[in-house]
């Protein structure tokens, strides 16, 4: 039986970039899973980390905090962090938190690979 705490995060590497694709709601109970994957990804020192969010129908401030931390970690290793494919509902929390300018947000992975 599946652990109900699971958040699926699909990994892909492409041209020196790591692409993480989480699927599920990223809330207080799930953001630690994403945090773990991001820390692992950063450990591999990629040139670029892309978080593809099309499969995320909901994100709360703990998810956003996880991404702010990811940005800090990425800067330390001179990697570029890019978010892409946000649903409207998820985009809305970045606006409310006034972080839509802080992050590089792209329409899709291809755009995120160039940004």
């Amino acid at each position, binding site marked *: *039986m*599946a652990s109900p705490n*699971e958040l699926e995060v699909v990994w892909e590497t492409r041209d020196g970039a790591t692409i993480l694709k989480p*699927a599920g*709601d990223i809330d207080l109970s799930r953001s630690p899973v994403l945090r773990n994957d991001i820390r692992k990804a950063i450990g591999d020192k990629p040139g670029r980390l892309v978080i593809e969010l099309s*499969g995320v129908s909901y994100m709360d401030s703990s998810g956003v905090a996880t991404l702010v931390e990811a940005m800090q970690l990425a800067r330390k290793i001179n990697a570029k962090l890019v978010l892409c494919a946000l649903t409207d509902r998820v985009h809305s929390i970045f606006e409310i938190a006034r972080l839509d300018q802080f992050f590089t947000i792209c329409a899709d992975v291809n755009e995120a690979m160039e940004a």
Partner: protein
Amino acid sequence: MSDPKPVIEIRLLSDPMYLAGARELVLGLTRRLGFKQDESGRIALAVDEALANVINHGYARALDRPIWMSIWTQTPEGLPGLRITIEDEAKQIDPDSICGRDLDDVKPGGLGVHIIREVMDKAVYERRESVGMRLTMIKALTPKSTHAREHANG
């Protein structure tokens, strides 16, 4: 059988207006517990039907009467799954009079109890101790009803 506290208890008024909130609660919870998307949808439907029946039959469409729903995330045997009770303070009736009809005779209505019994592993109506009726529904989380992974549904 141990009787732990329900993890969620909700009281709502018997206005059809509030059914959407109640069924979305159940949908959000069941998905989070690991029920598959379609199974979660069916469970939410069954709960919606049970609440609608209290409004229609128990309370004859009065809009301001209380309905209580309690949710446990284990079956009475202590297995992962759901136990949900729905209680009202409507007139007490013979539980055996609440039954689904023969579906071969297609006509408008008369589907709710069938849906509840079809979706749930077990659904038992009984008189409450003092006043009103109680429906207890059980649904185990089996490998069949489980998704290996959670998927967003937009």
